[in-house]
C-alpha cells in the first residue's frame, strides 16, 4: 500500500479516536443541566470524565499535527478555509478545558454556575461544528486552482452541513448519556439510561437521513455496508440500554461513531478535500501529501509509539473503572482549603 494511503487511514483513525473518546465527554458536558439535579450530581458527572477528558482531547491535536505533517496542503487549505468555525471551536475548547480545572476552585454558586455554562456551551459548540466541518469536507467546498478555499462562513452553513452538525451533536449527547449510565450509580444512572434512549432515537433518525444522503453523494458499495452497520450498531446500543446492559449500550454508540467516521473517510478517498469549483482542483492523497521520506519517518514513529499510547490510555480507563455516585463525592471539595463547606 502507498504510504499516502496509510497516512490517510491513520488520520481517519485519529479522528475516530477523537470522536469516540471526546464525543462522550462532550456529551457529558452538554447534558450537565439536563441529567443532574443538584451540584453533587453535577460533580458526579464531571468526575466520570475528570481523569480522562484531557487525554481524549489530545487526539484532535495529534490529528491536526499528523495532517500538517502528512498532508500539508490539506492542513493549510482546511484550517485557513474553515477559519471562523475553527475559531469558535478553539474558544469553546479553551473555556470548557478551564471549566474542568477551575469550577471546583471556589464554592460560590455564581462561580460554579459560570463554569457550568462554559462547560455546557463549550461542549455543544464543537459537537455541532465538527459535524458541520466534516459534512462539508465530504460534500466538497469551493477550492480554486491555488488550493485556496474561496467560500465563506455561509458556504459551510448549507443544509447538508447543518444536518451533519445535528447528527454529531445528538450522537455525542447519546454517547455521553450512555457513558454516564455506565460510570455512575444511583438515580442518575437510571436517568442517564432513559435519556440516552430518548436522545438516541432522535440521533438515529437524523443519522440515517444523513448517512443515506452521504451515500447518495459520495457512496460506494463498501460505504453502504459501513453506514448500514453504523446504523445497526446504534439500534443495538439503544436496545441494550433499554435492557439495562450499559456496557453493551456504550459499545453500541462507540462503534456507531467509529463506523460513521470510517464511512465518511472511505467516501472521501482518494480525495481529502474535493473541490466543487472544478474536480481538477480537488485536494487528493497524492497532490496534498508530504514527501515519501517524511511519511516514512512518521510511519516509524507511529508504528512504535501508537501501541504504547493506546496501552497506557487503556490502562487509565482501567484504573478509573469504578462507578461513581453521590456518596463518593467528598465535601468540602478540597479538604482544608474550602472556607464555605457546602
Amino acid at each position: 500500500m502507498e504510504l499516502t494511503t496509510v497516512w490517510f487511514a491513520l488520520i481517519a483513525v485519529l479522528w475516530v479516536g477523537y470522536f469516540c473518546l471526546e464525543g462522550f465527554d462532550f456529551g457529558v458536558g452538554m447534558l450537565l443541566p439536563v441529567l443532574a439535579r443538584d451540584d453533587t450530581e453535577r460533580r458526579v458527572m464531571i468526575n466520570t470524565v475528570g481523569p480522562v477528558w484531557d487525554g481524549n482531547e489530545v487526539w484532535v491535536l495529534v490529528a491536526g499535527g499528523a495532517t500538517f505533517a502528512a498532508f500539508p496542503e490539506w492542513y493549510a487549505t482546511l484550517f485557513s478555509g474553515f477559519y471562523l468555525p475553527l475559531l469558535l471551536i478553539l474558544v469553546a475548547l479553551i473555556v470548557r478545558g478551564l471549566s474542568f480545572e477551575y469550577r471546583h476552585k471556589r464554592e460560590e454558586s455564581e462561580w460554579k454556575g459560570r463554569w457550568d455554562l462554559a462547560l455546557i456551551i463549550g461542549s455543544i459548540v464543537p459537537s455541532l461544528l465538527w459535524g458541520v466541518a466534516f459534512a462539508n469536507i465530504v460534500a466538497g467546498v469551493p477550492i480554486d486552482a491555488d488550493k485556496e478555499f474561496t467560500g465563506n462562513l455561509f458556504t459551510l452553513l448549507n443544509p447538508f452541513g447543518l444536518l451533519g452538525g445535528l447528527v454529531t451533536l445528538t450522537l455525542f449527547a447519546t454517547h455521553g448519556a450512555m457513558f454516564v449510565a455506565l460510570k455512575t450509580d444511583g438515580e442518575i444512572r437510571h436517568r442517564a439510561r432513559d435519556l440516552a434512549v430518548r436522545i438516541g432515537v432522535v440521533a438515529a433518525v437524523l443519522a440515517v437521513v444523513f448517512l443515506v444522503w452521504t451515500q447518495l453523494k459520495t457512496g460506494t458499495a463498501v460505504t453502504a455496508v459501513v453506514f448500514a452497520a453504523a446504523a445497526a450498531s446504534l439500534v443495538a446500543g439503544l436496545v441494550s440500554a433499554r435492557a439495562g446492559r450499559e456496557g453493551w449500550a456504550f459499545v453500541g454508540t462507540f462503534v456507531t461513531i467509529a463506523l460513521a467516521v470510517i464511512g465518511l473517510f472511505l467516501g472521501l478517498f482518494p480525495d481529502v478535500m474535493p473541490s466543487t469549483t472544478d474536480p481538477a482542483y480537488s485536494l487528493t492523497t497524492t497532490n496534498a501529501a508530504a514527501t515519501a521520506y517524511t511519511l516514512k519517518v512518521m510511519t516509524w514513529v507511529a508504528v512504535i509509539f501508537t501501541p504504547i499510547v493506546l496501552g497506557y490510555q487503556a490502562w487509565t480507563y482501567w484504573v478509573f473503572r469504578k462507578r461513581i455516585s453521590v456518596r463518593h463525592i467528598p465535601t468540602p471539595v478540597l479538604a482544608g482549603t474550602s472556607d464555605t463547606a457546602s
Partner: protein
Amino acid sequence: MDVLDIARWQFGIITVYHFLFVPLTIGLTAVIAGLETAWVRTGKEDYLRLTKFFAKLFLINFAIGVVTGIVQEFQFGMNWSDYSRFVGDVFGAPLAVEGLLAFFLESTFLGLWIFGWDKLPRGLHAGCMWLVHLGTLASSWFILAANSWMQHPVGYTYNAESGRAELTDFWAVMFNKVQVVTFPHVIFAAYMTAGTFLLGVSAYLYMKKKHEADRPMYHHAIRIGAVITLLAGIGVAITGDLQGKVMTEVQPMKMAAAEGLYETSESCAPFSVFTVGTPDGKEEKFAVTVPCLLSFLGTGSFDGTVEGINPLSEEYVETYGQDPTSKAFTEGDYTPVIPVTYWSFRFMMGLGAFAAAGAALILWLTRKGRTPGVRWLGVLGLSLPIATTLASSWGWIFTEMGRQPWVVFGLMTTESGVSPGVSVFEAATSLIVLTLLYAVLAVIEVKLLITYVKKGADPFEEPPRVKVGGSDEDKPLTFAY
C-alpha cells in the same frame, strides 16, 4: 492594518501569552515530582504538604497553558497557510511527533496523578508526575526542533517544482546545532522559573503571621528553591553563551541587532549595558558600555570580529535577492526592528541576572537555619518568579524578532507566509476574540493563584495505602473535581 499585520500581532500575543505558563509548567512538574519522591523516600510530612500545595498552584497554571496551546497548533494553518504549505513537509513532522509522544504522556499521566491518590501505590503515583515531566521535556524537544529549523534550516532541500522545502534528513533536524544549545537553555530557564516560584511563594508565606507554625517548612522550601534557581541559573548562563556563539555564526544579523551595531567592528567590540539614543537606534546620545564584551559574547574571543547591520543587510540583498516580490528585497532592507532586539536582549539578561542575584541573597540570608526578620523578603521573593517568567518572554521576543524579516531564515520571509485567502474581517475577529478572552482568563488565573497562595499548604493528610486501581472499600474519592 492588513492581514499580515493582524496575523503577526496575533502570533506575538498568543505565543508570548502561552509561554508565560510553559516554563513554570515544565519546571514545576520536576519540582513536584522531586518533592513527592522525597516524601515517599523519607516519609517526612512536610514534603507531602509541599507537594500537594505546589501541585494545586501548578494545576491552576497548567490548565491555561494547555488550552492556549491548542491555539498554537491551529493558527499555523489558519493565519499562516502559505507558510504551512511551504514548510509542512519538514516542520509538520516534529509537531505531529510532539503530539503523539508528549501530549498523550502529559495529559494521561497528569489525569492519573490528580485523581490517583486513592488509586495508585505511592511510588507509582510519584512516577506519574515524573512521566508528566518527561512529557514536558519531550514536548519542548520537538517544538524547539521545529523552531530551530526556522532559525537555521537544515536537513532539507528546496524543491522548485513543488515550490516547498522538503525533508531529507530527520536526524539533522532533530540535532540541529541551534537546537542542541536552545533546548538546554530553555529547560534551564524553566527550572529557574520553577525554582524562583518555589522560593518566592514560600518566602511570602514564611513572612505571614497566619502561617507562623509552618515557618520551618517554608524555610526549607525557600532554600530548595534558591538552590534550584542558582544551579539552573548557571546552566542558563552557560547555554546562553553557547547560543550566542551559534547565533553569531548562523544569524550574524541577530547578534548585530542585539547590540544595534551598524558598522562592522574588527576587534574588541564593546557591549552597551544601556543606551539613550534616537528611537530607531541609529544615533547614540549616551551609553554605558563594557569594552570588548560583544566580541566575547559573539565569538568567544575579546578581539573577535562582529559584523555590523549595514554590511550584513547589503550582503543579504546579494545573497537572498532571488525573490523580487519580497518587500525586504525591494527596500534593500533585511534589518529587524533594532530597538526591539536591543532592549529585549537586555531585558532578558537583566531580569535573569536579577532573579539569580535575588536567590543568592535569600540563600545567604537563610544560611545555617537563620531566620531573617527583614520585611521585604516576601516581596523580593515574589518578584523573582515574575522576573524569570518575563526574562523568558523577552528571550523569545528577541529570538523571533531578531530573525525578521524571515520566518524561515534565508528561505521564506514572514510576509510571504501569511494566508492569502483569509479576510481582514476574519483575522481581526480572531485577534480581538482571542486577545479579550486571554485577558479575562489572565485576571481569573491571577486571582485564583493569589487566593490559593494565601491559603498556604493544607495540614498533613495521609493518603490511603492502596494497590493499583484502589481499595475495594466503598469510600469517598480522595480527590474530586
